[in-house]
């Protein structure tokens, strides 16, 4: 043995690392150790291999890279002695995971160890396999594990049972091989074997309907008997926890009975008595007892209905809910959430207690309770519940406000009995927590306000009052500014007073003050400022006395560094200065926003109508549609002041519109001018017969456009109004244009490596916004043919994924062909969470396997 190559002992290294005072010192120590270990690995040092691996594990735990030690694990596992194998397997489980290819190399050693004469070595191999085996290993080693289920020593049988769980989770097809051996395990007396056998049985039932049927028929009575014996067993010191014999076994038995009883009246009947006994006899003064009761309640709620048992269960939950232990209250809330589908009435009885839990000091409990309250709301209790929640919003923690606000808004929207209540509640929320209100929520509020014509005055006055007290909540400011712009006249002359209101006196300049302060506020973002500018434009026409002042404010922003604001103020200024005659028409009150189609837009299924600007305006939730006038005026100005050469005029149009116009290929040019006129007139949305009325410049542009019929025509085809607005409004992203049916989403490059590119195109069926059909196109960027091409995708739980077969499994080189495959993704959290997907692509190049993996985070939002 060479004393110089050995380095320090494990203990000394840990001491040295602990003695480090700074992270830099620690890194230095670790670097030195790693260098020594690498040197030892290169020398193929045998004597200190296990010590080096132990050190590496410690270093790994500190978060340093240790991949260079992976092969050492394999060498240790392959060595004959128990101590080496023990540390080797430990290292394997810590340093590797199932995705590393190195793991495949260990399969043979594991197989040998599973057949080893030393049962502890068999145990080590089973443990490692159970913790990290991959699907391939599971397939290769399943027969060994299955055989070990009948091993003489119970400690190996139990390990084999848990190992089997991993195997059937990785390869469900293998489930049927395990059904028979497991049935034997269920009859055993050894608690370890029973616990693991029952667990395996439960997992088998989950992956295989045949297994479920088999165990239901053959094992239900036996399991009920086992549970009865356990419940009535005398004191057993080895398994006793708080006076209960083996609560772990209790819980697993109850879990399996739940699986067997669900949806089967006979099996449920067979277990009724014992469940009643557990529910009534279990001591509930210690955690272990409560854990059993909790499991028992869940089983009672899941199996086929038995009125008496359900009452017992609900009573237990009631007791839990009033418990002073936070843990018990937490699980009670959890359980009530599941019970609500079974017995909503019983849960409603605890409403006031649950509401108290929303105000608990413990964030975990608050969150649970809030989710439960959300499920409890219905038409009859929405008013008092919302009042409680809104009141609590004032005093709640900052980090809870986001969740709370979202839930309140959702409740208000879903259950509001009348418009005035909706508006009142939303205003309260905006005042208290406007910064937490999502865009689509206040957009919806604007739509509702616009539709409630008898409440316009009331709303604008209420908003005005609210702004006097709080101006920090962004979305409150936005809604207020929009309403003042639209209904400023009602604010000033107190029109449409309701009985419940106190009259207020607001002068025209007060109203302008409010909007001005919104635009001057430092905290205001671009959207708010843009909305304020539009509101000012509107007010300039509504309040002639303030017109001059408004013009000054607008002019101040002509120098704004933000392009959007600069452009707006230039445009608006020219409207105020030069186009008095059309101004009043331009800034008319918004037509009533169509609730139905707005709702439709929110559900991402746009109807295919963009024929009129009204149609567009309708789909925009806020004041966005108003600027529809602006771009036109801009155009008019241009053709008025600078008679552009006709050719560039057309280009300009195109540029300005930001429409990606393909070289115009419109036939039917004779109709083009007319179509162009329509578009323009629609944009202006001025009255019935505007062509004559505002002759200032429209003809101009028309005549210049005459030479460019195709451009205008395609402009019409492309439904330009909304594109224009897209360019000019800078508000919320304007709704994506419906290309054919359903909204179109831009296609994305989902994955690109040096050799492969995958692009996704998206489409949705109208009326089914949750589901997206993705068509994926694979292109080979390398100069080799790919064969055995397999694409796999994984999604988180809130998504459901369905893959259709691919168009082929070989991919020609250099992009000379593609494989297409379509995927269907259903997003259960549609609108809340965007899609994410992980993908794995396997193929062969010249007979060599290649695996590529990636994650897609750049899905368009709203999918």
């Amino acid at each position, binding site marked *: 043995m060479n004393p110089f190559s050995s380095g320090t002992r494990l203990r000394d290294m840990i001491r040295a690392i602990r003695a480090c005072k700074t992270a830099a010192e620690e890194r230095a120590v670790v670097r030195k150790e790693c260098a020594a270990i690498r040197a030892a690995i290169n020398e193929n040092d045998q004597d200190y291999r296990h010590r080096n691996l132990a050190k590496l594990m410690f270093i790994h*735990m500190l978060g340093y890279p240790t991949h260079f030690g992976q092969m050492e694990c394999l060498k240790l596992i392959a060595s004959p002695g128990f101590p080496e194998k023990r540390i080797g397997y430990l290292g394997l489980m810590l340093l590797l995971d199932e995705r590393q290819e190195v793991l495949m190399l260990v399969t043979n050693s594991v197989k040998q160890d599973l057949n080893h004469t030393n049962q502890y070595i068999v145990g080590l191999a089973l443990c490692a396999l159970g913790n990290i085996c991959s699907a391939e290993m599971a397939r290769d080693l399943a027969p060994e594990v299955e055989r070990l289920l009948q091993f003489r020593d119970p400690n190996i049988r139990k390990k084999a049972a848990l190992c089997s769980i991993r195997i059937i989770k990785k390869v469900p097809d293998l489930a049927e091989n395990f059904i028979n051996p497991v049935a034997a395990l269920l009859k055993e007396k050894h608690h370890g074997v029973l616990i693991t056998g029952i667990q395996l049985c439960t997992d088998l039932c989950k992956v295989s309907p045949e297994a479920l049927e088999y165990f239901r028929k053959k094992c239900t009575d036996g399991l009920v008997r086992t549970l009865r014996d356990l419940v009535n067993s005398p004191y057993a010191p080895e398994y006793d926890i708080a006076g209960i014999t083996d609560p772990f076994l209790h819980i697993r038995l109850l879990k399996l009975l739940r699986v067997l009883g669900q949806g089967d009246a006979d099996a449920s009947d067979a277990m009724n008595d014992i469940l009643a006994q557990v529910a009534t006899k279990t001591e509930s003064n210690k955690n*272990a007892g409560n*854990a059993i009761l909790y499991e028992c309640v869940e089983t009672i709620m899941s199996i086929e209905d038995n009125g008496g048992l359900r009452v017992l269960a609900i009573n237990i939950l009631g007791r839990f809910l009033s418990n002073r232990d936070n843990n018990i209250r937490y699980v009670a809330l959890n359980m009530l959430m599941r019970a609500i589908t079974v017995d909503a009435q019983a849960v409603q009885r605890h409403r006031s207690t649950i509401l108290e839990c929303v105000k608990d000091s413990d964030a975990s409990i608050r969150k649970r309770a809030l989710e439960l309250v959300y499920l409890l709301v219905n038409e009859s209790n929405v008013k008092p519940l919302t009042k409680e929640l809104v009141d609590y919003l004032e005093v709640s923690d900052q980090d809870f406000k986001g969740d709370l606000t979202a839930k309140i808004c959702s409740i208000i929207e879903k259950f509001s009995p009348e418009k005035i209540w909706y508006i009142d509640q939303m205003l309260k929320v905006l005042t208290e927590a406007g910064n937490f209100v999502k865009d689509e929520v206040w957009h919806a509020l604007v739509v509702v306000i616009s539709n409630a014509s008898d409440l316009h005055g009331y709303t604008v006055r209420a908003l005005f009052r609210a702004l006097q007290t709080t101006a920090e909540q962004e979305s409150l400011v936005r809604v207020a500014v929009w309403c003042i712009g639209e209904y400023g006249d009602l604010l000033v002359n107190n029109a449409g007073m309701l009985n419940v209101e106190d009259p207020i006196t607001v002068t025209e300049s007060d109203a302008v003050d409010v909007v001005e302060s919104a635009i001057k506020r430092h905290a205001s973002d671009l959207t708010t400022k843009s909305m304020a500018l539009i509101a000012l434009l509107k007010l300039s026409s509504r309040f002639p006395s303030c017109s001059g002042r408004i013009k000054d404010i607008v002019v101040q922003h002509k120098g704004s560094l933000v392009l959007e604001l600069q452009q707006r103020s230039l445009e608006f200024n020219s409207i105020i200065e030069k186009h008095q005659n059309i101004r009043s028409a331009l800034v008319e009150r918004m037509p009533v926003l169509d609730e139905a189609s707005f709702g439709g837009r929110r559900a991402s299924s746009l109807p295919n109508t963009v024929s009129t600007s009204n149609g567009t305006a309708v789909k925009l939730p806020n004041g966005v549609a108003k600027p529809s006038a602006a771009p036109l005026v801009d155009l008019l100005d241009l053709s008025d002041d600078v008679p552009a050469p006709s050719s560039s005029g057309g280009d300009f149009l195109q540029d300005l519109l930001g429409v990606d116009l393909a070289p115009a290929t419109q036939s039917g040019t004779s109709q083009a001018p007319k179509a162009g006129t329509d578009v323009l007139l629609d944009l202006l949305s001025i009255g019935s017969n505007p062509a004559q009325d505002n002759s200032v410049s429209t003809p101009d542009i028309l005549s210049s456009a005459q030479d460019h019929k195709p451009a205008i025509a395609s402009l019409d085809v492309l439904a330009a109004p909304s594109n224009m607005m897209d360019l000019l409004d800078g508000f919320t992203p304007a709704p994506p244009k419906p290309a054919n049916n359903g909204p179109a989403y831009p296609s994305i490059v989902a994955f690109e490596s040096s050799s492969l590119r995958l692009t996704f195109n998206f489409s949705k069926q109208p009326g089914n916004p949750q589901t997206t059909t993705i068509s994926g196109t694979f292109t080979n960027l390398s100069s080799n043919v790919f064969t055995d091409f397999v694409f796999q995708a994984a999604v988180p739980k809130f998504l459901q994924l369905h893959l259709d077969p691919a168009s082929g499994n070989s991919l020609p080189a250099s992009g000379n062909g593609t494989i297409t495959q379509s995927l269907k993704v259903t997003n259960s959290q549609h609108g809340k969470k965007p899609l994410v997907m992980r993908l794995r692509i396997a193929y062969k190049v010249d007979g060599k396997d290649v695996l590529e993996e990636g994650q897609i985070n750049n899905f368009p939002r709203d999918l």
Partner: protein
Amino acid sequence: MHYTVCKELNSVILSVSSQINFVCLISRQGKVRLTKWYSTYSQKERSKAIRELSGVILSRGPKLCNFVDWKGHKVVYKRYASLYFCICIDEEDNELEALEVIHHFVEILDRYFGSVCELDLIFNFHKAYYILDELLIAGELQESSKRTIAKLISAQDNLVEVAKEEASSLSNIIAQATK
């Protein structure tokens, strides 16, 4: 996360059923003392998970409940002296039982080390892992008897001792022979 595979016409969907996803021990200073992963997480996800969780758990007051919601899972934790024992379980699992599993583990450690402290677990971290491996496999409980686990561990420790003695007597013989 589960992978959906489609080869030709039969598509296989694997869904993860309930189990313990990982176990970790974190000191009050946020140092990791033990981590064991039963579901597949990449190294990056692992360190991120630990970082996030220690932030959440260490900042919670003493009287609050022992559960935190975390990314669609639940983390059950309990503090023993300077160490937080954390277990990440699935949404439908029994939180109270997870607390019992933690306590079970602590009692076994206590029995093995003789009133265990953080230092024991630092210097003998591999032993703690061996004990955990006798308690859990594949994220499922393996044994409810503390005595059985103690017996199995000491039997294996003995095997190691015997092998060590053999090795040292062997090297003595070699040393003698080559003198």
